[in-house]
C-alpha cells in the first residue's frame, strides 16, 4: 500500500522548486515552502472483532511570500501546477492588503544547514491490514487476561504512518525528509458495583523495533483502569503532589510556553524578562536534543529552515535561554535558537529516585496520574486543574482518588520541585520523569 519513496521525494522536491520559483517570478522578494505527504493505516478492534480500519492519504502545501516586509501565507491540499499558481496569486493579493512588519523575513541563509544530517527517522512497519489487526487483537487479549470479570475492552488500536516532509526557501535551502511513526494503544473500562473507570496506555516510536510489546501495552492499560476503581475523595488541604511522567510533561510544557519567544514579546508570560534568574531548584537543568537518531522529536532544521542545536534552557535552576524562532528572536533583539515549531526531545537532568523513594518522601499527599481541564494561565502563572490519582499515606499508595483539583502558581510550583523520578517518558517531545512538587492546594 505504501508509496514509492524515491519517486515521491523527487516529486516533492519539484513542488518546492516550482513554488519558490513561481513566487519569485511574480515579484516576491522571499519565498518559503512546506510540503507534506502522508500515508497511513489505522486499525481498531473491540471484543475480538475489527471496529474500524482506516486508510489515509494526505497532501499539504503551505507557501509564504514576502513582498518587502509584507507577508502572505496560503495553503492547500492540491499540489498541481495550476493550484500552485493560483495559490501564489492569492498570497500576493493578501500582501497588498497587509501592513509591514520590519521583523518579517527569512532567517539568514547562513543559518540553514550546510548538509543533510541523517537522523534515521524512516522505518516502515506494517503494510497489510491483517497484520495490524493481529497485533490489535493481541493487545486486547493481553489486557483482558488481567481480569476478565471486571474489565471490558473499549478499543485496541494499531496505527502506522509514513510521511515525507519537505521545506524549501528562496535562500536556496531545500530538503525532503522521510519519517515514519507507529503506535499501539489500548483503552479498558473497569467496572465494579459502585461505578466504572477507564484508562489507557500507548506506545509510539519511529522505529517499530522501539515499540513496546503488544502484550505490555494491553496489560498496562488494563492495570491502570483496574487501579482507578473505587475512588474516594481526598481531604482538602495543602499537600505535596507527585506528578506521574505524562502529567509532569504538561507541567514542563507550561514552562516552555512561558519562555517561548512569542509569549515574551507579547508580554503574555508570568516569566517575563527572567533570563539569568533562578526559576527552578539549583540542581535542575533542562536541555533539548533535536539530533537524537530515531527520536520522535528528531529534526536537524526547524520550521524556519534553521539548523537545530542542543539548547540548554535551564542551567542549574537558572533560565539561560528563551525558546526562539527567527521572528520572535528578531522581535526581542536576539538570535534564533532554532525552535520554530517548538522544542524537540526536551530532557530534565538532576538527581533522580525511584517511585518508592518519592512516595516515602511525600509521606502524606497526592500522586496525580491524570489531569483534566484548561485551568492554566500562562500570563499570571495561576494553575488550577481537575485531577485523579492516588492518595499517599505513610509513604505508600493507599487508594484511588478522583473529583478533586490541585491549585497553585506555576512560579511557586517550579521553584518547589523537590525531586525527579527515574522514569522519563520518551513518548513525548517534553520527556519528563515523575516530578514531586512540595506543596499545592488540594480541594475536594
Amino acid at each position, binding site marked *: 500500500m505504501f508509496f514509492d519513496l524515491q519517486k515521491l521525494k523527487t516529486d516533492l522536491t519539484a513542488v518546492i522548486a516550482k513554488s519558490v520559483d513561481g513566487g519569485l517570478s511574480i515579484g516576491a522578494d522571499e519565498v518559503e515552502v512546506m510540503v507534506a505527504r502522508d500515508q497511513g493505516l489505522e486499525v481498531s478492534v*473491540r471484543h475480538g*472483532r*475489527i*471496529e*474500524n*480500519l*482506516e*486508510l*489515509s*492519504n*494526505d497532501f*499539504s502545501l503551505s507557501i509564504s511570500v514576502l513582498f518587502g516586509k509584507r*507577508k*502572505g*501565507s*496560503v495553503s492547500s*491540499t*492540491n499540489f498541481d501546477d495550476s493550484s500552485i499558481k493560483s495559490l501564489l496569486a*492569492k*498570497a500576493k*493579493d*493578501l500582501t497588498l*492588503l*497587509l*501592513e*509591514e*512588519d520590519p521583523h518579517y523575513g527569512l532567517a539568514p541563509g547562513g543559518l540553514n544547514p550546510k548538509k543533510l544530517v541523517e537522523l534515521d527517522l524512516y522505518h516502515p512497519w506494517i503494510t497489510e*491490514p491483517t497484520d495490524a489487526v493481529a497485533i490489535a487483537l493481541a493487545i486486547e487479549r493481553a489486557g483482558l487476561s488481567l481480569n476478565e470479570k471486571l474489565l*471490558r475492552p*473499549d478499543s485496541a488500536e494499531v496505527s502506522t504512518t509514513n510521511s515525507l516532509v519537505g521545506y524549501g526557501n528562496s535562500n536556496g535551502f531545500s530538503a525532503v525528509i522521510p519519517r515514519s511513526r507507529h503506535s499501539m494503544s489500548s483503552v479498558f473500562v473497569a467496572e465494579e458495583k459502585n*461505578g*466504572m473507570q*477507564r484508562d489507557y496506555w500507548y506506545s509510539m516510536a519511529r522505529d517499530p523495533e522501539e515499540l513496546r510489546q503488544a502484550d505490555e501495552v494491553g496489560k498496562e492499560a488494563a492495570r491502570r483502569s483496574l487501579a*482507578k476503581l473505587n475512588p474516594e475523595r481526598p*481531604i*482538602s488541604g495543602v499537600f505535596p503532589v507527585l506528578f506521574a511522567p505524562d502529567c509532569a510533561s504538561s507541567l514542563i510544557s507550561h514552562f516552555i510556553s512561558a519562555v517561548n519567544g512569542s509569549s515574551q514579546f*507579547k*508580554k*503574555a508570560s*508570568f516569566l*517575563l524578562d527572567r533570563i539569568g534568574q533562578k526559576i527552578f531548584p539549583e540542581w535542575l537543568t533542562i536541555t533539548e536534543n533535536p539530533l537524537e537518531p530515531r527520536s520522535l522529536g528528531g529534526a536537524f532544521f526547524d520550521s524556519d529552515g534553521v539548523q537545530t542545536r542542543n539548547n540548554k534552557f535551564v542551567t542549574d535552576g537558572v533560565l539561560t535561554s528563551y525558546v526562539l524562532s527567527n521572528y520572535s528572536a528578531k522581535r526581542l533583539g536576539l538570535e534564533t535558537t532554532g525552535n520554530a515549531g517548538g522544542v524537540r526531545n526536551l530532557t530534565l537532568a538532576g538527581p533522580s529516585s525511584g517511585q518508592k523513594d518519592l512516595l516515602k518522601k511525600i509521606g502524606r499527599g497526592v500522586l496525580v496520574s491524570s489531569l*483534566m*481541564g*484548561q*485551568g492554566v494561565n500562562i*500570563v*499570571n502563572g*495561576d494553575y*488550577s*486543574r*481537575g485531577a*485523579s490519582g492516588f492518595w499517599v499515606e505513610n509513604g505508600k499508595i493507599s487508594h484511588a482518588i*478522583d*473529583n*478533586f*483539583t490541585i*491549585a497553585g502558581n506555576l512560579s511557586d510550583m517550579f521553584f518547589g520541585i523537590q525531586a525527579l523520578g527515574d522514569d522519563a517518558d520518551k513518548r513525548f517531545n517534553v520527556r519528563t520523569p515523575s516530578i514531586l512538587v512540595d506543596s499545592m*492546594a488540594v*480541594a*475536594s
Partner: protein
Amino acid sequence: MNENGDQMSKNTDSLLDIVLSELLIPNQMSVSSLESAMDSFGARSIDFGEVFIQSVNYESFSLEDGRVKAGSFSQNSGFGVRAISGEKTGFSYCDGIDADSLIGSAKTAASIAKRGSGIKRENYSKTNSLSKYASVDPLTSMSDKEKANILLEIDQNARRADSRVEEVSASLTSSFERMLVMSSDGVLAADIRPLVRLSVSVIAVEGNKRERGSAGGGGRYSLDKLVSSESPSRFAREAVRMAEVNLRAKPAPAGRMQVVLGPGWPGVLLHEAVGHGLEGDFNRKGSSTFSGRIGEKVASPLCTVVDDGTLFDRRGSLSIDDEGTPTQRNILIENGVLTNYMQDKLNSRLMNVPTTGNGRRESYACLPMPRMTNTFLEAGKSDPLEILNSMDRGVYAVNFGGGSVDITSGSFVFSATEAYFVEGGEIKYPIKGATLTGSGPEVMRNISMIGNDLQLDSGVGVCGKQGQSVPVGVGQPTLKIDEIVVGGTQTES
C-alpha cells in the same frame, strides 16, 4: 406544507445543484461518478456505503501591535469513503477530488468491511430540509480593506477603554464549506455552510500584575452580518472589562461550596456534565455513566436539557448533519428524566433507534460520530437576582475558558476565567480563575434554582472528541448548584 416551506425546499434543491456543479464539474465528475463509486462497493458485501465530498476555503486576518500584518488563506478539498458491515467500518480518504481515486477508495473500504447483509441499489432521493443559514461565502462578503478596518477599530476601542491595556490582539476568520454526501440508504444531500468568528484578547498591566481578558463571537453568516449584529467595539470593551476585573482578583477559595453560574457561555457545564455522556457511541458500548439509564432520573426535576441543531444562524447549527440527516431539536433530559441519546447512522442502526441528526465529522478525513450541535438548559422560573441573593457563601462564575469530561466515571471539570466571591447574597470581590469539578449526574442533581434568563453563547465554542474538532454552541439561564468543588488556593485547614 406552507408557502414558506415550499419556497425553502426549492432553495434546497437548487443548493444541491449548486454544490454538485461546484464540487464535481471542475474535477471532471458528475452524479454518475458518485453512483459508480457506490456500485463499486459491491452490492452484496456490505450493509451501508457512503461517499462524502467536501471543500473548505478558510481565511484569517489578525492584528498585533496595532497593525493588521498577518493573513492566511487555505483551500482544502477531498473525499472520504465509508463501508459498514455490522459493527465494522472500512474507511478510506484522500486529499483532492478525482473519480479514479474515489472508485479505488470505495473498493478498498468495501474490501475492509466485507460480509454484510447487502445493500440494494437505491434511487437516490434528494434530501429536503430547510436551510438554517444563508448560502453565502463569507470570504467574499466584504472587501479585504473592510476586514482590516474591523480589526483596527477593535484595537483603537480596546486601547481607548483603559490606559492599562498594553497588548491587543484580534483575529477575524471566515470559512466557506461545501459538502456533498451520497449513501446506500438513498441519500443524496448537500449543504453550503458559512462560518465566521471574531476574537479579541487584551493584556492589561498594573504594577507587577498582568492579566488577560478576551471576548469574541460569530456564527453561520456573512461578515457584514457579524459586524451589523454585534458591534466589534463591544467585543473590545468586553475583553478590557474582563482584564480589568482580573487585575482586582483575589485568590479563589478551595473546597465544596455553593456556586451560581451566569447565563450563556457557562452552559459549557451542560456540554461537559451531561452532553458528551449522552452521545450514542458511548452508550452503545456501555462506557458512559449514563448508559442504560433512559427513563431514569439523572438531574434535578428543574432541568430540561436540549440539543438543537436547527437554530437559525448559530455556530453549532447545521441544516443537515454530515450524513445528510436533517438536524432536529432533541430533548435529552426532560424535567430531570433522561429521554434521549444523540445518534449518528451507525449507532442508531446498532441500537435500533431513529437517527437524531447528530452525525458529524471534522472533515472528509475523519469518520462521523455522534456529536452535539447547540446544547442548552431550558429557562426556569427564578429571577436571576433572587438566585444570587439566595447564596450564603460561595462563588458566582460568569465566564469560562472551557471544560472536559471523563464520560466513563462522569467526572468533569470546567475552568472559570471570571468569577466573584459571594457572601450573604452579595458580590464581595472578584476571584482568580479556578477550576470547578464534580461528577455529572451528582452536580445535575444539585441544581436547585434556574433563572428565567436563558441565553446562548456568542458563538465561539469548539468541541474536541477523539481528535476531531467541530464548532458547537452552548447556553443556559442563571442557575444555582448547591454544592460543587471549587479548585482555588485558599484552603480552610
